[in-house]
């Protein structure tokens, strides 16, 4: 794995060259907080941000996305037929994504790019995207990534890892995609080949700063029915207002709902993010809803992330410990507390 040094003075110029062949996204300030957005000409990603309010999930998987179009005009030959929409999947890059958010895409990939089902929209857009990560030197106090299968310098899911060292960025090239991006940016990569040591040191220092932890080791062995019927759900869910914030800010949530909207004789089929917190989630055509109450919905969220996912993929929990749901839940329902309750649950 090659590590190169990028002089910060050259940073902007490289990004400008990059913007010729890549559409660039990055963290940028929006009023009081940071979000990931498409960078305008000459706009630099703000790499000082600790963590964005919303995850970069929408860059690959927009909150509302058209899937098909159709016409109801019976004079047209193809009436009542869903037609694919031409979509643009040219190269794009997210500059300054945090390692947790990048790893989150891998978790989601297990669902959208599974052997039995392939989601073309997600896959195409994921494949078109290069992820340039930025190591976290100062993780927030709510982050628990190190015990959620991730970490402040975690490389899985990234194409390049950037590390901020004085007036340079060290860039560790992790994948071929990353290599291609560096070539397009044209930073001087030959003259100064750096070593991995400073990255390792900073990584250790950053990991040591993470004080918030969860235990997940017992989840797999717990009985699903016992957890499902555990008595703590009433207490855990009492405060929840089912607002769905936790699932919308989360980089690893993936649920969506499909809708047709017709205007006159033409229409589109679209999908919108959905959340297990909402009353329409799994609402059957018959009028029955297996998750009709708040407690059932809250249980679904935690069981999905911390039990069903664990069992189905045998690859850890469906959470990367980014801490967003902890910070933004308006009533302070804390996944760390619930995870520990589940992990230590005894009948």
């Amino acid at each position, binding site marked *: 794995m090659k590590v190169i040094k990028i002089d910060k003075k050259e940073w902007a110029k490289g990004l400008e060259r990059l913007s010729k062949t890549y559409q660039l996204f990055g963290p940028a300030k929006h009023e009081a907080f940071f979000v990931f957005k498409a960078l305008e000409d000459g706009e630099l990603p703000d790499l000082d941000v600790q963590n964005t*309010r919303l995850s970069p999930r929408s860059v690959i998987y927009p*909150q509302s996305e058209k899937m098909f179009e159709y016409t109801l005009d019976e004079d047209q030959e193809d009436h009542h037929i869903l037609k694919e929409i031409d979509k643009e999947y040219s190269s794009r890059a997210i500059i300054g994504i945090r390692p947790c958010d990048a790893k989150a895409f891998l978790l989601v990939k297990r669902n959208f790019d599974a052997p039995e089902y392939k989601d073309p929209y997600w896959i195409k857009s994921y494949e078109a995207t290069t992820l340039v990560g930025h190591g976290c030197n100062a993780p927030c106090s709510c982050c628990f990534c190190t015990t959620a299968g991730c970490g402040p310098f975690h490389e899985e899911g990234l194409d390049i890892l950037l590390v901020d060292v004085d007036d340079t960025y060290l860039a560790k090239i992790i994948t071929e995609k990353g290599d291609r991006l560096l070539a397009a940016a044209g930073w001087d990569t030959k003259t100064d080949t750096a070593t991995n040591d400073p990255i390792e040191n900073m990584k250790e220092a950053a990991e040591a700063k993470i004080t918030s932890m969860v235990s997940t080791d017992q989840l797999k062995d717990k009985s699903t029915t016992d957890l499902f019927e555990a008595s703590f759900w009433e207490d855990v869910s*009492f405060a929840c207002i089912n607002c*769905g*914030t936790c699932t919308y800010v989360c980089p690893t949530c993936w649920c969506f709902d499909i809708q047709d909207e017709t205007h006159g004789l033409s229409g589109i089929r679209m999908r919108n993010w959905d959340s297990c917190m909402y009353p329409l989630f799994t*609402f059957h055509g018959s009028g029955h809803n297996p998750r009709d109450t708040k407690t059932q919905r809250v249980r679904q969220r935690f069981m999905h992330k911390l039990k069903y996912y664990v069992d189905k993929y045998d690859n850890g929990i469906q959470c990367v410990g980014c801490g967003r749901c*902890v910070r933004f839940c308006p009533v302070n329902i804390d996944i760390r507390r619930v995870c520990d309750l589940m992990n230590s649950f005894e009948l």
Partner: protein
Amino acid sequence: MLSYIDKIKEISRRLLKESKVDMVIGFRKGTVVMMNEPCFVKTVADVDKLVWDSNCGINLANYLANRTEKIGIVAKGCDSRNIVTHIIENKIKRDQVVIIGVPCKGMIDRHNIEAMAEAEIQEVIETDDTIQVKGAGFEKTLDKKEVLQENCAICVHRNPVIYDELVADEVKEQTDVDRYEDVRHIEALSPEEKWDFFEDLLSTCIRCYGCRNACPLCYCPTCFVDESRPQWVGKSQDSTDIRTFHFLRAYHCAGRCTDCGACERACPMGIKVRLFTKKLEKDCLELFDWEAGLTLEKRPPLDTYRPDDPDEFIR
């Protein structure tokens, strides 16, 4: 205000011990700074979990609708007004609740305080008038008055309007506040400017409905945005649909909203959703001399008829 907790615990213990209530709804200590979590307490032993400080902004009346138990509930001025509204609207019966009234001195705005700090806040220490925040490499003491939630800063009903027990003497009500400065500013805009103002206001809305769900008034079994047979509103991020949601939500709160600030507090995107409901609240005050939730004796303006209605067409 910090001293209230002993009295809250004492009353809760007594109510539970004497089986006057099945549960007490209050707050327990949060897991992150400047947050407490609404909770219920069903046994005397659990009463010690309860806390009270300036991070109890969530409107607990939201947890009452359609409950069947006998409930003790800790209530600030605004919560008590929403309890009144619930009673008027048959969401709970008066004799089902024992209201533990809390004369309130205002709740703090954590998002605002976070925005004022140089780095992440790791510790917050509160006294009656100050909020001290600490983080890596900084420490400062803020005047609590300066960091109140906006609705608390202009609140004129800090004392519970209805209660069975009061945890302390009533506090002085604020009289010299200008409640509607921001609304007047919007009223003065031209229709085009108004349109742009709201477009901008809602530009970051992710339609999570946190504002709706945090609100005690929004208890409909199926909200109009969730109605699917037929569907009233599109469900995508289309701006017309987002706007429709916000305007209709606000209108459904007309004459009922107590400006408790729960909606704004809940919004993960920091959108000032109170601007919608405040305009209607102002209208109700000016046109009908009405403030929601002050009395059990009168019907709210939108579900009653008065021969002296200010609008000519209806007289």
